[in-house]
């Protein structure tokens, strides 16, 4: 997926779009990640100042949510569902194979609402049902 390089100026422009939101901190962090691919640690202070809250508050939110990350993403992102309905159709084995093959690109997911057609994998945001290693490789191209 395509992200732009992190910069403080770009971050401030983005934050301005949330000026009228109530409870904007989580939205701000999500917006950083959507645009830059990750939440740069420097944005903690920027967000805190912008919304007149403490760095501890922003840091607390950042570390609570599984979606948020502070390091740049890999070129491809593979999220594989490891929840029960997908386990029932072989996700426990598939996840081992995918991790062995794609390493860092692979993340555990907990249900994409495709539980009747599992195993389910998201490859760069595209949903794959009845997933196999071959299907994942194909979608990753």
């Amino acid at each position, binding site marked *: 997926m395509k992200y732009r390089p992190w910069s403080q100026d770009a971050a401030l422009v983005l934050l301005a779009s949330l000026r009228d939101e*109530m*409870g*904007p*901190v*989580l*939205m*701000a*962090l*999500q917006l950083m990640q959507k645009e830059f691919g990750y939440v740069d640690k420097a944005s903690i202070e920027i967000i805190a100042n912008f919304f007149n809250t403490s760095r501890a*508050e922003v840091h*607390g*939110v950042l570390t*609570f*949510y*599984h*979606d*948020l990350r502070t390091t740049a993403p890999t070129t491809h992102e593979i999220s594989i569902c490891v*929840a*029960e*309905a*997908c*386990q*029932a*159709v072989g996700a426990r084995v598939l996840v081992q194979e995918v991790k062995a093959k794609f390493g860092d690109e692979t993340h555990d*997911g*907990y*249900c*994409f*609402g*495709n*539980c*009747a*057609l*599992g195993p*389910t994998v*998201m490859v760069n*945001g595209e*949903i*794959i*049902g*009845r997933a196999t290693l071959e299907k994942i490789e194909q979608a990753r191209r």
Partner: protein
Amino acid sequence: MRVFIPGDSAAISVGADAVAAAIALRAPSAEIVRNGSRGALWLETLVEVQSPDGRIAYGPVSPDDVTSLFDADFLNGGAHALFLGKTDEIQWLSSQDRVTFARVGIIDPLSLDDYRSHGGLVALNKALTSTSDWIIDEVTESGLRGRGGAGFPAGIKWRTVAQTPSDQKYICCNADEGDSGTFADRMLIEGDPFTLIEAMIIAGIAVGANTGIVYLRSEYPYAIATLRKAIEVARKNNLLGSKILATSHSFDMTVRVGAGSYVCGEETAMLESIEGKRGVVRAKPPLPAIEGLFGKPTIINNVLTLATVPMIIADGASAYKARGVGRSLGTQVFQLAGNVARGGIVEKAFGITVNELVHTYGGGTLSGRTLRAVQIGGPLGAYFSTAQFDTSMDYESLIAAGGMLGHGGVVVFDESVDLAQQAKFAMEFCALESCGKCTPCRIGSTRGAETIGLIIQGVEVEENKRLLLDLCEVMSDGSLCAMGGLTPMPVKSAMINFPDDFKGGVR
């Protein structure tokens, strides 16, 4: 020529976009409607063509089938190996009682005209000319209970919010749908989003709220996109905004996207999350109905709870409560998932047995191997063995059987399942998702996973089983919310119903 090819993400996951593109290429003049899914997910991609006497279905269609479908003249209902006849006569679908899901899969999700011509907005127009009391009376009278898990009567919650004076109130829709094995909220939003919008407006009118928020999980990008588009269409048509449909009522709504936290489906953690904070569960009281979002009176309801309201208002409370058993009235949108041959949405009146769901509809396992277990009600729900398959699927019967209905998901496992591993996963999931407020949940879950690990390794099995049951009791009694409080349910039910899996060693 109208051709229906679902744009539902489950259908897309097995190639619906490619099927649509291939059909569009061969038949450029065909009008392709990307409808929601009919819910027979085992038939996806289910392609339907409009014929003078109803829709004709083909499925499951893969992109490779498109050439042969054209060779068979499927646009005119030609014979083909994937021919299923009239969609309305497919027994799996025709034997269901679609109320909440009446329009899903039938209409173009983003066409307001389609929505109107299938009964949409009848309830809103009724509500706009009714009193708040009448609306709430209907909802109460229908017997509608929360579909998010706790089963609390919707009307009582609405009444509390209506009777709490405040300058600002909120309608929060819980679309976090974190339970594995559930997808009905997603399918409703992707297939019939105006029903949810209409429901939230009605709730707003009933309790005097002008702002709605849908908390939608980030794992559902397709649903997020559809709902945002539908809200735009609704605004353009003055369904949302000020003085809606030329009345004195105003209502608007937005979507807030989750950030990958299961516990944020718990209603007070959800409120914290919408407020932009860590998703830590709040102690009750105060009830959210009295002090909810930003401290204001707030209705919190699951997608399915809300989406059933327009049907109740349009057709009357008595029609709805005529269905079901005991105190479980109306229909439940069951979701068949996991290792099941015919998975998908089964909407039926409460009271269908597990057996009917899993065998008559589900057709047994996908693998063809012996069916061994089902988990009902998500990651906090119980594991049942086939010995319990006569249990009636309703709130009370499932509790009596040592489980719960939850959000209505049924996950099927074949004989390859190891229930000790499943119990261990339940503890690990709790450890991962605990909000951290209570020690039994935060630490107990980690110790629980370790203890089950020891049992699996065959280390002091009896002693560790005793320890585990003890721990489960502490978690049940010492947790603020159902995350820690109900994690013992899958663990204990697995131990009780599948004792052979807890004798040490890997199955």
